[in-house]
């Protein structure tokens, strides 16, 4: 009898545990995020204030948006190193067309977005038709887009039209537009990945490119779509960033590509392709933002900060993989 009860109890515990696993297991990074937030909240009383949480959201937004676009690429077993530069180029193009040609600011924004799409399209064409490794194609684009941003702006920040500045503002006195944009694009990314043909093709190409080809998926065509999408998302990120700074900066978002890729990978995607989800990426971006925000709040000395950031990233992902292994 006692044995039976014990068994029953174990089973019950297991089922509770497995339910939690269903919730969290799908996205291990969530565990890391929760842990991290709890630690930060204990160490700093202001961490859990509404204002600070919104700050975290705003601070995550640009990387998150870049990372959503990056998710498409990584799911399809590619990599896009150019996202930071393309973001800067798009914001400079917008500012430039609005100020020098005097184009309607909304049209200027469209031109900026198109710039992102074109940059992505070229990367995609180099990968699909030029057979360049994605790393090389997008590394080249990283350099080209940054150079063009500098050429166009002559190295000097350009003021953005107010339509762009709106992207950095706050609605109703509390909702930051960057957070809103991040949410909308996150939803869009999830929709594309889960529901559209292009999205499913990303998983197929990333999981087994040969099988995808033999099943009649036009892999090259899809690669054009994938990198163009990444370019478009990067352009939006660039505009949000420009909005926050109210100016187009030729050096903006430099180095953000590593953050964006890290967010995707922390979110559970594999660089080998075939896996990854928009929600995971979102959590990954939040993990990075919480680490940075927390270290600021705790006033960790700047040199040590880099050490701590590295250690916390490793620990956060480690907690996830170890948990998974035990399960």
């Amino acid at each position: 009898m006692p044995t039976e009860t014990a068994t029953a109890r174990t089973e019950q515990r297991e089922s509770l545990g497995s339910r939690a696993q269903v919730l969290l297991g799908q996205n291990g990074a969530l565990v890391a995020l929760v842990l991290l937030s709890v630690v930060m909240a204990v160490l700093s009383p202001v961490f859990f204030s509404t204002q600070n949480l919104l700050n975290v959201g705003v601070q995550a937004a640009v990387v998150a948006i870049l990372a959503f676009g990056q998710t498409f690429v990584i799911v399809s077993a590619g990599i896009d190193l150019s996202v930071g530069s393309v973001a800067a180029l798009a914001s400079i193009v917008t500012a430039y067309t609005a100020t020098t040609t005097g184009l309607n600011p909304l049209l200027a924004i469209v031109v900026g977005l198109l710039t992102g799409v074109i940059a992505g399209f070229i990367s995609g064409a180099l990968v699909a038709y030029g057979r360049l490794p994605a790393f090389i194609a997008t590394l080249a684009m990283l350099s080209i887009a940054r150079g063009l941003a500098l050429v166009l702006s002559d190295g000097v920040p350009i003021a953005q039209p107010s339509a762009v500045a709106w992207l950095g503002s706050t609605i109703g006195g509390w909702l930051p537009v960057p957070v809103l944009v991040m949410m909308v694009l996150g939803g869009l990314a999830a929709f594309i990945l889960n529901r559209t043909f292009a999205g499913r093709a990303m998983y197929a190409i990333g999981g087994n490119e040969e099988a995808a080809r033999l099943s009649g998926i036009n892999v090259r065509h899809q690669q054009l779509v994938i990198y163009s999408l990444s370019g478009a998302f990067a352009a939006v990120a660039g505009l949000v960033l420009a909005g926050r700074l109210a100016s187009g900066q030729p050096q903006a978002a430099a180095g953000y590509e590593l953050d964006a890729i890290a967010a995707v990978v922390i979110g559970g995607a594999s660089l080998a392709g075939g896996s990854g989800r928009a929600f995971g990426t979102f959590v990954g971006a939040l993990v990075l933002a919480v680490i940075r925000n927390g270290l600021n709040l705790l006033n960790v000395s700047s040199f040590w900060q880099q050490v701590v950031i590295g250690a916390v990233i490793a620990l956060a992902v480690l907690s996830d993989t170890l948990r998974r292994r035990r399960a």
Partner: protein
Amino acid sequence: MNTRPTNTATPPAGRELLRVENLVKKFPGVVALGGVSFDLHAGEVHVLLGENGAGKSTLIKCLAGVYQPDGGTLFVDGEKVHISSTAHAEQLGIATIHQEFNIVPQLSVAENVLLGRPPRRFGIVDRRKMHAKARAALQRVGLDVDLRRPVSTLGVARQQLVEIAKALSLDARVLILDEPTAALTDAEVDRLLELMAELRQNGVGMVFISHHLEEIQRIGDRVTVLRDGQSVGTVPATTDTGELVRLMVGRSIEAQYPREQTPLGDELLRVEGLTSTGHFEDVSLSVRAGEVVGLAGLVGAGRTEVLRAIFGADRYDSGTVSVRGKAVPRHDVHAAIGAGLGLVPEDRKAQGLVLGASVEENLGLAILRAATRGGLVDRARLREQARTSVKNLRIRTPSTRATVKNLSGGNQQKVVMGKWLAADPAVLLLDEPTRGVDVGAKVEIYQLINQLTASGRGVLLVSSELPEVLGMCDRILVMAQGRLVGELTREEATQDAVMALAVKEVESSRAH
């Protein structure tokens, strides 16, 4: 040398769907097809027969739009065509099940069935419709699994069924099946052959490749035999097996299962109470020197899992494994190999081979450590070893430097065998060692098993080909639902006796 092809078969009544004349396909260093001709009619099952590397898969890849032939002509419905891509082949009504699996491991079963062509509107996938279509296709092959499950969680057999369902769902007029039965057990093979008969009734033309001669006679109408990239003849499927083998191999084969029993020596492998929750339970067995022990059972009985656990590839919860009386630590492949174990895994592509590496490198993989002195690898020795293996196993490859990926399926399997023979383990664990291997080469592999036991080694053999188990094993253990349910001596073992044991347990558990 070019003997005139024998052509003794009369084409069936149906209208001609497909004709190939003098097809030529060359790869660097290899003429895979040197002028093959063949035709397919509606309502016909046309078998392609040939040794490993004869060019069967290359031929059908030309038909499927994967390869562009270097010469010759292709006719579909009597019209000359140039099949430019796989999508083009599909448009022409040609569906293909390739020898290599073309599944996307991470995607669900349903998505794999409808890969590349999910029902959609304005680019948005209609999941409900997709699931309905996939379910219908899977029902035809008798596979009942959760459609949302990632296909990677299915065993090899059920992945093969998914592939078949995928091709069927195209509703093609021409269906090409490249060794679809290699990964299936008898029950599923029966089901597939029934399905093919049904399709034949509906006027579908099928090209069927298999190394199982009995299947050919059961379902085939005509047989075209390929040898070294040439068609050596087209004969009726009713042709006697010996004659088919002679056409294919160029010589006749006396004994299909040439087991030479040797006196048994000491116990080499002992497995005691091996349990892995959810996979298998309380498995105890032993293999003695000079003995071939068979592990029979239905797909999903857990045989593969047991082999992998013994070898240290997977964890297990309790039980012990010992080789020559010495305990082997669990979950440590390195130690298992050190103790004298070797494993030829069932999935050569995923677990057996480094596809992008050369034949030489693959053949040297299991003896890499042994060929190392002071951290330096004796590559001359490995090269020598590779040449010997290629010669002994008659691996058909342009050179030992050729990439394994470019070998034919059967020859890839031989490379995996060769890798372990080179390592000379005390006990070799074989999981479906002859999958995709031609009749001639099979006998060669059996001879190798004989050599192993003659030299005092032991073999634990898992095979879904019952005749092979019956023909080659000295003792047969039957598994069902993760448990050993019986043991039969060579004398006691018959097809019926084994099946009775394998199925009984399944039925009794169903009754619960």
